């Protein structure tokens, strides 16, 4: 039982990482309807950019900021130079899955070709370990959780209380209607990719901080749990993705602790499979019908 409680701590940290990625994924998927598997590529890129920055002596906060900027630029470029041209050429919506899988494959192996198969790790200052019953959590892990919470609250506030947030929600709900009402849908989509990129960039750096060492394929290991979290919470709903991430993170860590550690991913995968088959619209379904790829 102690193991399960100890795993709860890991689960919350995993959930924090997943929620950052899942929120970026779900926001962008909800607005543009492009299933972007290459988000793992953006995360992977952010990991190695942060590694390079970290080597030159930048502190953790600067590293995260640079990772976020890198993610935003990469994600915007991905849409502007690859996805958007294909959508304009009339590629069928689900064929975008193949395109994003191709892009992810390319990024993953370009990274492998550059950095090689080895593992690297960030130099993170050693922090105090706090104990709460059987749960042990380091100062770094606590800051990761705090970063996730602050970032998500900031996004939620933006979506809820600003005019721009309103425009994003309007586009996600009904793009043609939003356009007809004077929303600049093209700009909303660009900004959505930027925001999604900021979140995936932060997620990448946070992965690099949290895991003891990472390789070219580490970000890919987070992809399926991340999508599971996003779909569990209902596509296009950042708060839902947060809850989804909490469920996926905690259940997979605790489940793995109780059964077999190598089944951590299987539990996350199985949850995604079951959710998709039993309740395809997620725990908190969208109020609107699915729509077309948004141009």
């Amino acid at each position, binding site marked *: 039982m102690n193991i399960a409680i100890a795993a709860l701590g890991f689960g919350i940290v995993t959930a924090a990482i997943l929620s950052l990625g899942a929120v970026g994924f779900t926001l962008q998927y909800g607005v543009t309807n492009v299933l972007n598997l290459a988000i793992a590529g953006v995360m992977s890129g952010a990991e190695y950019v942060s590694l390079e920055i970290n080597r030159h002596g930048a502190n953790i906060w600067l590293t995260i900021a640079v990772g976020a900027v890198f993610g935003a630029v990469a994600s915007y470029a991905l849409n502007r130079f690859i996805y958007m041209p294909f959508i304009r050429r009339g590629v*069928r919506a689900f064929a975008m899955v193949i*395109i994003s899988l191709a892009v992810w494959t390319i990024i993953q192996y370009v990274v492998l070709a550059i950095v*090689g198969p080895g593992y690297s790790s960030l130099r993170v200052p050693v922090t105090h370990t706090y104990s709460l019953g059987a749960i042990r959590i380091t100062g770094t892990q606590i800051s990761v959780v705090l970063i996730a919470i602050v970032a998500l609250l900031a996004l939620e506030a933006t979506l809820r209380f600003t005019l721009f947030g309103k425009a994003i929600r309007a586009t996600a709900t009904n793009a043609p209607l939003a356009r007809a009402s004077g929303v600049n849908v093209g700009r909303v989509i660009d900004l959505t990719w930027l925001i999604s990129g900021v979140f995936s960039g932060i997620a990448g750096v946070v992965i690099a901080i949290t895991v003891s060492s990472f390789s070219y394929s580490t970000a890919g290991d987070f992809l399926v749990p991340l999508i599971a979290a996003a779909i569990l919470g209902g596509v296009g709903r950042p708060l839902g993705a947060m809850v989804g991430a909490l469920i996926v993170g905690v259940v997979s860590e605790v489940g793995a602790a109780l059964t077999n550690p190598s*089944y951590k991913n299987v539990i996350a995968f*199985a949850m995604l499979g079951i959710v998709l088959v039993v309740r395809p619209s997620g725990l908190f379904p969208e109020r609107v019908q699915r729509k077309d790829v948004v141009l």
Partner: protein
Amino acid sequence: MNVVIFYVTLILVYFAVDAMACAGLSLEFGVTGVVNFAYIVFQAAGAYTAAVLTLGPASPSGFQQYIGGAHWPFPLPLIAAAVVGALLSLVVAVLGVRRLRTDYLAIVLLVAALIATTVATNQDGLVGGAAGLALVPHPLVALFGNNAAGLSYNVFFAGFSLLLCALCFLIVHRVTDSPFGRRLRALRENEAAAMAQGFSPFRLQASVLMMGGAMAGLSGGVLVEYVTAWAPSGWLYPETFVLFTALIVGGLGNNWGALVGALVVPTGIGEGIQYLPHFGSPTFTVSVQWIVIGLLPLLFLWFRPQGLIPERHRRFAPAGEKKGRQLVQGWLRPRTSSTQIGELSTSKDARP
């Protein structure tokens, strides 16, 4: 000289296996439009079935542990491999295809492939764990004086696998040329219209998945009987992506395209990459291989969506007029208005 013939037979067997797999996937994806991202799992299931049914029961003290071992005579393990592939596809069809939208189905199948690999790797007693199965006896080797390494046996095996490959293509050809094949294409082009004609998308998709799954299983069985070993590292999910690339390169929805795709992508690039000069890190060559395989679908969808060999438009000309020779522009990237794309991406939602 013998070495050359040996190498040629090896490549022919690999090509036959890839082509069989491409034939099945072409039926599922190229003709019907089902995005089966777990296709390689059916090949793996066929391979494990054939291996286990040839190896005989696992001895408790043996170095490999698996379930369901038996000593079945030659053609039975291969037939069983095809049957297992088909039955597994039926399960996928019932659980997934019936309920899910295309992009969600793609994710679920991708996830299923990941689960299958993880379970096969970590359950030691199931199919040999991470090390997999080895020392699978060659079929019919007794006819060649037990000399499986001999040239004549390899020539025989290459011929045998090419024969099976031809059989698969014959079946696919008969299917796609029949009224049934027309229904499949109708389903691919416009599901709602096909339903309005009274066809059940589920039935069509399920039967196509079973045929494709059987071919995948058979290809796995043939491969494992030739290479005599099979392990989870041989069927990671990107291998399915290789086959999708093959179809997009060769040309979707036509059988010659699938054949050419199998020749160019898995066989051509897989073998050709070994002739690249080695430099940089030890993983450089494999990186280049995957980057090329990732770039090909992008380049083809952009510059030549119809693939190397375009699908022919089937047209029923009125009497006296010449029969249609029009070529389809590649259905994955049709020049349609966005509303039609929207219909396609949301058609599953329209169902009650």
